[in-house]
């Protein structure tokens, strides 16, 4: 019997019996289709890897589940792919765990699974194992997805400490993902054209292989935004960063909504951006190379590395003043007036 996608997830599906088996077989196995998943074991037996292993996990609890530019499914794949790629690894395999709330529409689950399959194909990774659990109504928020990923570091690239005068590159505009989500949050629903930048960055990062020895560190600035990454680096590597506000790219709609809500785009999440600290002498070449990639066309140098004795992260403002760029304090909450 075929699954009726007009229905909803119920506890029968969650009981681990025939209904669950049918859902996994008809939906997950069919969409994620690959030789490792087809083994249908409680584990995926994978071939030996040619290099050091990179292993990462992340849980996705985004609301709303569907947003302009993506959904929780594509986010769950791209997020883990990017976490691996930013460590210099080639992402290979992904494990996906679903926690679904009773009553969740099956049609939406199908849409999410299809989106994950498409994202995995684009990123050239395989979803090789997984798990599905159903929780009672009221004990979840529709659907949560956890993805864990394995990648391989083939060329011994390791992060190294930034040096004074190094430069920081980012592959485009900041804040698109966070604002795409915020604009569709319950109670706001701004009529905006902001689209999430949700994308897998592994092929962009792979294209930089010729310059690897000049790249000190990489990171994708997700929650906490650009400011969180720079503050983390500054603390860990004991250096300081100075952003040039004039060089930062913030799309018009993101700027407008940030103004209304009192948010700083430097604190807003991205899902398709990578930041690199690179040796000064190679920064322009690396930036040019990134511009050749579809996800790097708006790449730019946005900051420089200063000696450790200075304020950890600062920004030269458009007016020529200098101000601190701090961590985000707590959650960003819209201001009253």
């Amino acid at each position, binding site marked *: 019997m075929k699954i009726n996608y007009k229905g909803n997830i119920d506890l029968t599906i969650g009981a681990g019996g025939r209904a669950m088996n049918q859902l996994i077989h008809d939906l997950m196995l069919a969409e994620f289709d690959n030789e490792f998943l087809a083994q249908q074991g409680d584990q995926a037996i994978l071939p030996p890897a040619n290099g050091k292993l990179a292993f990462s996990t992340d849980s996705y609890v985004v609301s709303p589940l569907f947003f302009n530019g993506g959904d929780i499914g594509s986010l769950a794949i791209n997020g883990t792919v990017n976490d691996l790629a930013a460590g210099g690894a080639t992402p290979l395999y992904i494990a996906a765990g679903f926690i679904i709330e009773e009553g969740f529409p099956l049609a939406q689950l199908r849409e999410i699974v299809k989106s994950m399959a498409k994202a995995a194909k684009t990123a050239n990774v395989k979803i090789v194992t997984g798990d599905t659990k159903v929780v009672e109504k009221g004990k979840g928020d529709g659907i949560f997805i956890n993805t864990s990923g394995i990648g391989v570091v083939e060329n011994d690239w390791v992060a190294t400490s930034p040096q004074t005068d190094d430069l920081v590159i980012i592959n485009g505009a900041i804040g698109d993902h966070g604002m795409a989500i915020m604009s569709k949050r319950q*109670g*706001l629903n701004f009529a905006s054209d902001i689209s999430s930048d949700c994308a897998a960055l592994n092929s962009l990062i792979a294209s930089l292989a010729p310059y690897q020895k000049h790249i000190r560190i990489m990171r994708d600035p997700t929650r906490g935004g650009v400011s969180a990454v720079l503050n983390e680096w500054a603390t860990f590597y004991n250096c300081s960063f100075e952003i040039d506000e*004039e060089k930062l790219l913030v799309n*018009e709609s993101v*700027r*407008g909504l940030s*103004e209304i809500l*009192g948010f*700083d785009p430097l604190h807003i999440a991205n899902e398709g951006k990578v930041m690199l600290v690179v040796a000064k002498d190679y920064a322009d070449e690396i930036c040019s190379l990134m511009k050749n990639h579809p996800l790097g066309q708006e790449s730019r140098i946005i900051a420089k590395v200063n000696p450790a004795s200075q*304020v950890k992260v*600062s920004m030269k*403002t*458009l*007016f*020529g*003043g*200098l*101000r*601190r760029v*701090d961590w985000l*304090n*707590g959650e960003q*909450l*819209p*201001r*009253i*007036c």
Partner: protein
Amino acid sequence: MKYIDEFRNSQVAKKLIENIQRKINPERKYNLMEFCGGHTHAIHRYGINQILPANIKLIHGPGCPVCVLPIPRIDQAIWLANQPDVILCSYADMLRVPGDKQDSLLKAKARGAQIQIVYSVLDALEIAKNQSDKMIIFFAIGFETTTPPTAHAILEAKKMGLDNFKVFCNHVLTPVAMTAILDDNEVNIDGFIGPSHVSIIVGSDAYREVAQEYQKPVVIAGFEPLDVLQSIEYLIDLINENKPDIINQYTRAVNPEGNLKAQEIIARVLEKRQQFSWRGLGQIAKSGLKIRQEYAHFDAEVYYNLPEFQSDDVKSCECPQILRGIKEPKDCKLFGKACTPENPMGACMVSSEGACAAAFQYSLISR
């Protein structure tokens, strides 16, 4: 971006700075208070305080509604949120503000109180319409900017016969607070960078008493960085000429008499309290608003016979002096140590637009 980029042009900023440098008298100090937290935020965010001549001192006033709400009122809001079948609706940035013993609405929510973030009082009204089995209490705070919608919502609730909608009213008044600050002999202010959004409602004429009786010029300034710079230039002119006048720099939104319709709605529904306590500043006579007897049915204070709470500001906190411009954030021994945005001890650190929070977040002083 039209209407934003025009007010952030670095070339225009450079020109304005040159004007200010040319106009100032190097022999004297200019103590300018920006009353609004929005201005404080813009000044720090664009580093305006660093590019002004050293003899212009910007004093960050008390104009942040989140900051100035006293601890007992937060305690009362938490008490209301804990009543059976209540949904307390609040603007988001109130949730973090600490009450007694660092409790907050955010913590009350985590303990199970039903607290809903709303972006407008009309959202709260909508919830009341849809959830008739719950009592919806709107936590109304703010200066004149947010007051008219609160008054309007009460009129709407009456029209609709919504018995399950109440308002916990904490609205405060700007011009009264300015005069209260000036009454302090220690205060040394030469002029005000006047509020912008507030002035849309009250009009630029509302500052006549400040300008004429206290001999302090006021320039109503927009929130964009170029607005602030141009307003500083205007203030320097007025101070140099010894003219305690009012200039409206924010002409694109403010007129002399303000929004008469909004004023009429406020006057119909709300009236001045004899006293209202401000966090960091203490009691200020006739500086707060309460719901008129005629609309008492919608007043959460009356309906719940709201208990009084006794809790004071932290003793060693220097907020009262900082809000008056007598001290700066760095002069407070709690600043950046015991008192941080994650764990604010005083009014100025509570909201991102408070003087200490802005200094903590943006300034290059070591901490």
